[in-house]
C-alpha cells in the first residue's frame, strides 16, 4: 500500500525512514498548519500527496513555509468586553467555583459553537456540572460513582477532564482579543478555577491504588508546559 506521511518531529522520521514523508515546521497538534486556512492546508496536503509520484525512496522532504500566524476573528455579534471572572462566594468549594465559572463562560461557548458549527465537548455525553462533581468527589476521596458504568476509573477521569478543558478552550477562543493557542493554554492553566481543580486532582491521584489511574495522573492530565509554571 503506497503511503506518505506528514511528520511533525523530523528527527523521529529520519530515524524511522518511512517510504515518503513531508516534515512540516508546525506546532504539535496542527499537522496541516493553520485552522480556517483552506488555501494553506491545501498546499500542505498537495505537497505531501505529490511525494507519492516519486520513483524511489525513502523520501523525506521539508515543507518550506511556516504556518501563518493565527488570529481570532472578531465578529459583530461578539460582546464588547472580555470576561473576567466575578468574585466567587468566599465559602464556595472549588467544584462550586468551577461550576460557577462554567456558567460565566456559557455564553462564550455557545457563541463558539454557533460560529464553528461544532464543538469538541461531548466525548463523555455527560453535563459538565456532573463531571465537575465527579472530579470533586474523587479529590476528596469520596466513593465517586462513575457518570458512565461502561468506563474504567482511569478513562472516566481522563474523558471528564477532556470535556472540561475543551469547554474552557472553546469559550476563551470566542472572546474578542485574538487568542493564540499558547495564550489560551496559559489563561486556562494560570487563571481558572478549573485548572486548580485539575491540579488538586493530580495531587489526589498520585498514590492511587490503580496503576492506570496513577499513570493518567502522572502523564495524561497536565501538559508538561503547564507543569513547569505555577499558577498566578
Amino acid at each position, binding site marked *: 500500500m503506497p503511503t506518505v506521511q506528514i511528520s511533525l518531529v523530523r528527527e523521529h522520521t529520519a530515524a524511522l525512514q518511512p517510504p515518503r514523508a513531508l516534515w512540516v515546521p508546525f506546532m504539535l*497538534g496542527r499537522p496541516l498548519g493553520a485552522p480556517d486556512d483552506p488555501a494553506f*492546508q491545501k498546499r500542505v496536503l498537495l505537497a505531501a500527496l505529490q511525494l507519492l509520484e516519486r520513483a524511489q*525512496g525513502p523520501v523525506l522532504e521539508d515543507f518550506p513555509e511556516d504556518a501563518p500566524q493565527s488570529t481570532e476573528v472578531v465578529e459583530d455579534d461578539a460582546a464588547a468586553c472580555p470576561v473576567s471572572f466575578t468574585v466567587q462566594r468566599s465559602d464556595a468549594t472549588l467544584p462550586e467555583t468551577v461550576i460557577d465559572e462554567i456558567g460565566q463562560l456559557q455564553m462564550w461557548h455557545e457563541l463558539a459553537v454557533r460560529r464553528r458549527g461544532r464543538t469538541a465537548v461531548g466525548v463523555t455525553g455527560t453535563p459538565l456540572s456532573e463531571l465537575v462533581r465527579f472530579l470533586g468527589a474523587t479529590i476528596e476521596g469520596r466513593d465517586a460513582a462513575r457518570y458512565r458504568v461502561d468506563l474504567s476509573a482511569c478513562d472516566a477521569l481522563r474523558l471528564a477532564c*477532556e470535556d472540561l478543558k475543551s469547554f474552557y478552550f472553546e469559550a476563551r477562543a470566542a472572546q474578542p482579543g485574538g487568542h493564540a*493557542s499558547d495564550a489560551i493554554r496559559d489563561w486556562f492553566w494560570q487563571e481558572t478555577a478549573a485548572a486548580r481543580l485539575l491540579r488538586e486532582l493530580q495531587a489526589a491521584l498520585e498514590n492511587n491504588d490503580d496503576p492506570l489511574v496513577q499513570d493518567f495522573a502522572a502523564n495524561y492530565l497536565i501538559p508538561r508546559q503547564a507543569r513547569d509554571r505555577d499558577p498566578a
Partner: protein
Amino acid sequence: MVRLADLPEWEREHLLGKIPALPKFATRPWVAGGPLSRRRVALITTAGLHRRSDRAFTVDTRNDYRVIPGDVEAADIAMSQFSVNFDRSGFQCDVNVVFPIDRLRELAQASVIGSVADFHYSFMGAGSAVTRYEPKARELAGLLKQDGVDAVLLTPV
C-alpha cells in the same frame, strides 16, 4: 513550530529521548503507483478521532482503530486522544488542521486526485510502542485494499 531547536530544552530532550526506543525495520518496502490524478486516497490519523456516536478510545482499546466514513461531516468528528502535550485549539476550531477531509474532497472535485476513499481510519498514537499497532495495521491494510485505495496519507497530531 516543531523545530526542536526552537523548543525549551526540557521539551527537546523529551522528544529526542524517544529515538532510541524507535523500532529498526529490516526492510524498506516501496510501493509505487500511477499518477496522483488517478489515485484513490484514504486518510489515517493517530489523533484519536472517531465519530461522536462511536466509542471513545480507552485504555483497553488504545491500540485499536476507529472507522471514519468518507461522507462524515466535520461536526461529527470527536477526539479522545490520551496525550495532553499538543495544541488542541486548532482542532477545536477546524477539524481539517488535523484531519483534512474537506481539503481531500476539494482535491477530488478538482481532479487533482482520483477519488476519496469510502472509509478513513484513526489510531490513538500515545502511550504505546509503535510495534503494538502492527496487528491492527495489517488488518486495516486489507480493508483499504477492499476499498480500492492505492494511496494513504498518514497524519500525526
